[in-house]
């Protein structure tokens, strides 16, 4: 959805590529409160860049600085090579779609959408024509004479989108664009947004607290916490290779095992973790100081749940196998405490012998399981050596 495989563009990997938006060491203070701390970011033309974070993480402040509603306390913002310092919002090549939509209540849909063009003194005939074509793109032609309060939430959202796109901005800022819509409409609108973005070639910067929204919309995600950018990457990178505990816990569900690094080889790491009760073996090297406290993060869908002791994969040192040939690492025994049937998947909460509770997601591939796992059943959990990632604080 976010990037069609045949046209995958990854300008951030190209050292020659010119960033369309360059944010350099931007800090914003409100009195004593520091909303944004030393953020540097490059966003490329045609991207859908999502700023993701909880409330109060500074993502909206950063967006408002791009729009020109707030001035950075220090640092600089460049849009298309032009320093934006001192440029008022009405002179920026940027339009914004507000979280509350901010439609003018005293104007009709048509007047709302035409507002931006009227400010620029575009001839009347051209305004009418452009408003018509924009409204037909968002499928609101039959509502042009309505006032905002006569529209549904989804229709208002589309008016807001049409109004922010009518001036053909090079950069569109979207503040929680889908926040006020219900789930079905949200999914539908996500597709529409991506389609419009591709059709018009606009660069989108989207602020959201909804990780699912960020995952489906974004070409890249910038995860923010306490005013800082914690990690920037594609949705896949953010989900599979989170760099810190915060990122892995914020995006999706994760099981965290605290531990100490036993061995740090170029091709693998072993971690001693009292929370699992067995060593954790990870098939990639990390670069941390030995003996440092680290966390091994395992996604629930990557954990297997079995009645029998799992067999170790090939290529693992013999010394790490148990006497029965089973694996002595990445595995533990526990008791099923909760089962939630979700239809496509089932979620199991397993209490390990160490006392730690972990979450396991299994797809329901068969309509009738022969003997389904039940509550209070004793099971083995395990995962593949490539499934876990090491994260630091």
């Amino acid at each position: 959805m976010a990037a069609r495989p045949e046209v995958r563009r990854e300008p951030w990997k190209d050292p020659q590529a010119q960033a369309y938006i360059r944010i350099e060491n931007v800090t914003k203070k409100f009195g004593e409160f520091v909303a944004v701390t030393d953020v540097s970011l490059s966003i490329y033309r045609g991207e859908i860049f999502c700023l993701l974070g909880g409330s109060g993480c500074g993502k909206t402040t950063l967006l408002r600085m791009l729009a020109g509603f707030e001035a950075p306390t220090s640092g600089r913002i460049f849009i298309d090579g032009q320093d934006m310092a001192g440029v008022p919002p009405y002179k920026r090549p940027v339009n914004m779609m507000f979280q509350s939509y901010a439609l003018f209540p005293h104007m009709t849909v048509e007047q709302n959408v035409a507002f931006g063009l009227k400010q620029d003194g575009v001839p009347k005939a051209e305004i009418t024509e452009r408003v018509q074509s924009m409204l037909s793109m968002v499928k609101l032609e039959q509502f042009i004479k309505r006032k905002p309060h006569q529209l549904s939430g989804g229709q208002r959202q589309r008016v807001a989108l049409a109004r922010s796109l009518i001036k053909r901005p090079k950069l569109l800022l979207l503040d929680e664009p889908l926040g006020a819509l219900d789930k079905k409409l949200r999914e539908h609108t996500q597709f529409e947004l991506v389609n419009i973005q591709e059709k018009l070639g606009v660069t989108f910067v989207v602020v959201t607290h909804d990780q699912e929204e960020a995952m489906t919309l974004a070409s890249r995600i910038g995860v923010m916490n306490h005013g800082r950018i914690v990690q920037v990457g594609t949705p896949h990178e953010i989900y599979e290779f989170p760099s810190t505990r915060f990122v892995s816990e914020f995006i999706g569900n994760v099981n965290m095992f605290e531990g100490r690094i036993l061995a740090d080889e170029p091709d693998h790491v072993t971690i001693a973790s009292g929370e699992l009760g067995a060593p954790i073996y990870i098939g990639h090297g990390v670069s941390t100081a030995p003996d440092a406290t680290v966390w091994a993060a395992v996604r629930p869908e990557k954990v297997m749940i079995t009645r029998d002791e799992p067999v170790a994969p090939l290529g693992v040192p013999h010394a790490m196998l148990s006497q029965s040939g089973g694996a002595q690492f990445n595995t533990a025994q526990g008791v099923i405490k909760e089962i939630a049937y979700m239809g496509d998947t089932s979620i199991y909460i397993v209490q390990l012998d160490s006392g730690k509770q972990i979450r396991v997601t299994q797809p329901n591939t068969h309509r009738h399981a022969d003997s389904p796992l039940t509550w209070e059943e004793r099971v083995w959990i395990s995962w593949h050596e490539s499934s876990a990632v090491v994260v630091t604080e």
Partner: protein
Amino acid sequence: MAQISYVPLGNRMTSRLGRLLENVSQLPPCRWSLGVLRRLGFTGRTAVIAVPWIWLMLFFLVPFLIVLKISFADTRLGVPPYTPLFEWGQAGYIQFKMNLANYLFILKESLYFEAFLSSLKVAAVSTIFCLLLGYPMAYGIARSSASWRNTLLLLIILPFWTSFLVRVYAWIGLLRNNGLINNVLMGLHIIDEPIVMMQTDFAMYIGIVYSYLPFMILPLYSNLEKHDNTLLEAAVDLGATPFKAFLKVTLPLSIPGVVAGSMLVFIPAVGEFVIPRLLGGTDSLMIGRVLWDEFFLNRNWPMASAVAIALLLVLVIPIMVFQRFQEQESGAGSQK
């Protein structure tokens, strides 16, 4: 039929007393009388509305009807100084005498027409000045920080803590020939002889605008304070300069507040009597003053009543406009 859901016969009562009352209300005599009350439309809701309703009936509608009645009477010497509308005739029938001469006289005599006209003019000019002064003030208060806002509002309301008459007399002290303003100006040798301000239209307008300014500011403030700042940001984001955003967004959205404030100033200013009398010239012709003269100088109660009724009719039209806008505003508020 709506359930009666207020104490004492509420259906949600769980206490023993409540259950007892409920049982009693099921007894045939209670049930019947309750049924009758319900059929008459008497519910808890009407009981609540009845209180202000009765108040307005007693102290507004009844006096109004009395004035209306007097306006159709004729003068006579005696107590009361007007003829009754209904009278027992000699032969035992009721005599009904309705005198329309007062109203015809108002229409015929140009004095009244001119008084009405000049009252409307004074009220209109005062309203415009109140608006010109009050809008920036209300806007300023609405846009100031929350901690300042209450202080500023308090300053607007503060004059109300002093008697209205005292405040008007204070203006006399400021404006008269050997008053503060003239003394200061003469002391500074800016002028050689006092500027005559008292007993002029200027002093009268100052008095009216000063007295009614809060009535303009408060409804305007309550409108402007509700404005969503993101609307202005959206306008600026779409290319409007801040001033244009004000013209295109804030101003049209504040029209209900402008109308409310203007009506609150205009309506009482038309009938204003004290300020023109104390500050204005002797030649200022205001309908309030005509009314006073008819009552207390001429002792012509029917004529005075007719003038009062005519004034009411003149004012009913703006009041209806006011109500229409209020409905619109409450409608707009519920859309948020």
